[in-house]
Structure formats: structure tokens, C-alpha cells
């Protein structure tokens, strides 16, 4: 049993390594994307309609959200969520004037590029267009944070509780069963 120990350890280490490496990357600057001439297209999306990307070219440069497994980017997303006053309308995920972000109902789609488009283009009934206002890297960080609010991300990348008044159990609250449907 002992002879195979080194290979077993090596494999274990590699697996832990891959998972660990991505989660702990600190990426400060992303390659600058296209220029920011964002025009807000008129789209034919209807609230509650089929969740598909808005008409016109999708603003998302990449299909997959780059920060789904990066704990640092998600905690930056948590900070930006406070800084850019998203909580003004969405509260801390429970929803207020704006729709709730912690549940799995999405008016305009819960996939990364759909959330990206929602933030960049804005949506009817009050969601402003932040395309010109927030750089692409930060939008992707917000996308990753919003998706962690509804429990779509891995447990070990979710941010801990903020050093602020206790609004809701932190996404990393691991004792509650993970049913995003329940809003508390």
C-alpha cells in the first residue's frame, strides 16, 4: 500500500492545485477590450419572455464568465456592488425597488453573458445602462458576484460576510441547504 503512496499524493496534489490555483489568482488588470462606444439598442425583450440574449450584437466578449472560480474577483464584485449603489435598488440580493437577485427567477436571463448585457445595456423599468460607466473587468466581477448571490457558484469561492451591518446570511453561509428559491 505504501509503494503507491507517492503517485497517489502527486495526483491529489495536482487536483488540489488546479482547484486552488484558479480560486486564489489575483488578477489586477485585464487586457483592454474594445472601445466603449456603447449604444443602447432598442430590444424586443419582454419581461417574462424567453430568456435570450438581447437583439443586436452581444456585448459579452466571451461566452463564459471569466471570474466564476476566482474568489478575489467575486469579493471585488461584492465591494463594487456596494460602491456603485446596486443595493439602492436590489437591496443585498433580496430585492427592493429592483428585482431580487438571490432567487432563480431571471427576467432577462441568468447566464453570465445575459447578466453582462443587462448591466451594460440597462433594462426597462429602471435598470440604467452602465456600459460607459463601468469598465469591462469590473462588470465581469459584478456578474460573478451576482451569480454567487443566487448560489450558482462553487462553495469555496463565495465571499464571506462583509464587515457591515448584517443584511442577510453570507452566500458562503454553508449550513443552510442550498435552495436558491427561498428568499429570506
Amino acid at each position, binding site marked *: 500500500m505504501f509503494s503507491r503512496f507517492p503517485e497517489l499524493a502527486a495526483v491529489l496534489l495536482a487536483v488540489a492545485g488546479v482547484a486552488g490555483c484558479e480560486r486564489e489568482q489575483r488578477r489586477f488588470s485585464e487586457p483592454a477590450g474594445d472601445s466603449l462606444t456603447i449604444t443602447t439598442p432598442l430590444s424586443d425583450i419582454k419581461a417574462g419572455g424567453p430568456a435570450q440574449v438581447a437583439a443586436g450584437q452581444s456585448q459579452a466578449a466571451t461566452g463564459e464568465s471569466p471570474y466564476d472560480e476566482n474568489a478575489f474577483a467575486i469579493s471585488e464584485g461584492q465591494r463594487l456592488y456596494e460602491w456603485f449603489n446596486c443595493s439602492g435598488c436590489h437591496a443585498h440580493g433580496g430585492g427592493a425597488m429592483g428585482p431580487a437577485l438571490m432567487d432563480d427567477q431571471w427576467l432577462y436571463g441568468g447566464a453570465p453573458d445575459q447578466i453582462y448585457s443587462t448591466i451594460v445595456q440597462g433594462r426597462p423599468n429602471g435598470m440604467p445602462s452602465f456600459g460607459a460607466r463601468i469598465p469591462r473587468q469590473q462588470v465581469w466581477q459584478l456578474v460573478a458576484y451576482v451569480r454567487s448571490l443566487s448560489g450558482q457558484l462553487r462553495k469555496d469561492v463565495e465571499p464571506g*460576510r462583509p464587515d457591515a451591518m*448584517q443584511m442577510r*446570511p453570507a452566500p458562503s*453561509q454553508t449550513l443552510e441547504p442550498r435552495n436558491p428559491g427561498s428568499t429570506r
Partner: protein
Amino acid sequence: MSARSTIDVSRLPTYAFGHRSLMWWATMGMIAIEGTVFAIAIVAYFYLRGLSDAWPPSSAAPDLLYGTLNTVILLVSGIPNHLAARAAEREDLRSVRLWMVSCLALGVAFQAVRALEYLTLNTHWTQNAYGSIVFALLTLHTVHMITDFIDTAVLTVLMFTGPLSGRRYVDVNENADYWWFVVAAWIPIYFTIYLVPRFFP
């Protein structure tokens, strides 16, 4: 070796009770360490209490029922524990078995009551620092209660199944000391969690 004066220790006892045995020093070491952990946790409780203007800040104080009931059960469990220790020194296997089993019975009782205590704390560890420190104090004691219960259970099984030698009675005696520690440690914690918020807000 030249014929020097020698000390023949061949017929000395091969085990001893109380502070003469090495195991007693290990138990006392454990008690000193865990005692310091409890003491510092209680100091942290009063430190946090000193900082906040209302204590408990936003919730009601814990209900007294289960906490007090558990204190009584713990104190009562001291009796079989004491008798088990005396029986061990007499190496009277039958009464050692009897008192250890009764200790375990009381152990099951206070773990059940402890589960109910958790429900009547009227706070949650995520709510605020008060909730966190109250849960910390209670959980610290609960962990010690459970580990001590399992230690006693394993020792009791050994006392029934063997293999037994004289030294095992020393182990029973030391285990009783640790049980006394778990009982004694609960008193200041009970006072801190249950009585301080109620009578010294």
C-alpha cells in the same frame, strides 16, 4: 561496573494513584490548558459586553429552564463519578462498572438537555458578537462534554471486556478527575451565559 552500592527497585509498585502517577500530570495539564481556554473565552465575553451599550444587544436573554436543569444534572453526575473514582482506588471492578455506567446514563441525559439548550438561546451566532460569543462558550463546553462522554464510554467498555490490569484503575481514576473538570467548568459558563445578561444587563 565496580561493585558500587545499588538500589533494588524490583519489588516497587508498578502503578500508583493520584499525583504519584504520570497520567495524573497529563490530565492536570489538559485541565490547565482547557481551563485557560474557558477563562479567556469568558474574558472575551465580558470584553465584548463592555463595548456594547445594551447586553444582549437585540434579543432576549437565554431562557433559564434547560440551562439550570443541565447544571443540576451535571452536579448530580458528580456523585457516581466520585464513587467510581473511590471504587477504582479499591480496585473493586463490580462497583467501578456500576458507577461508570450510571455516569454514562447521566451523560446521555445532559447531552439531550444540551441540545434543547441550543434552541432556547434566543440568538444565532451570525446575528451579532453577543450571539457569536454565547454560541462559542456553549459549543466549547459541549465539545468537551461529548469528548469526555466518549472517553468514559470507551473506558467503560474496556472495564467490561478487558484485557484488564491494575493500571486501568488508574485510568478510571484520572478519567473521573477530567469529568470533575467538565462539571466544574460549566459553573462559570452557566453564570456568564444565563445569569449575566438577565441580572447584570
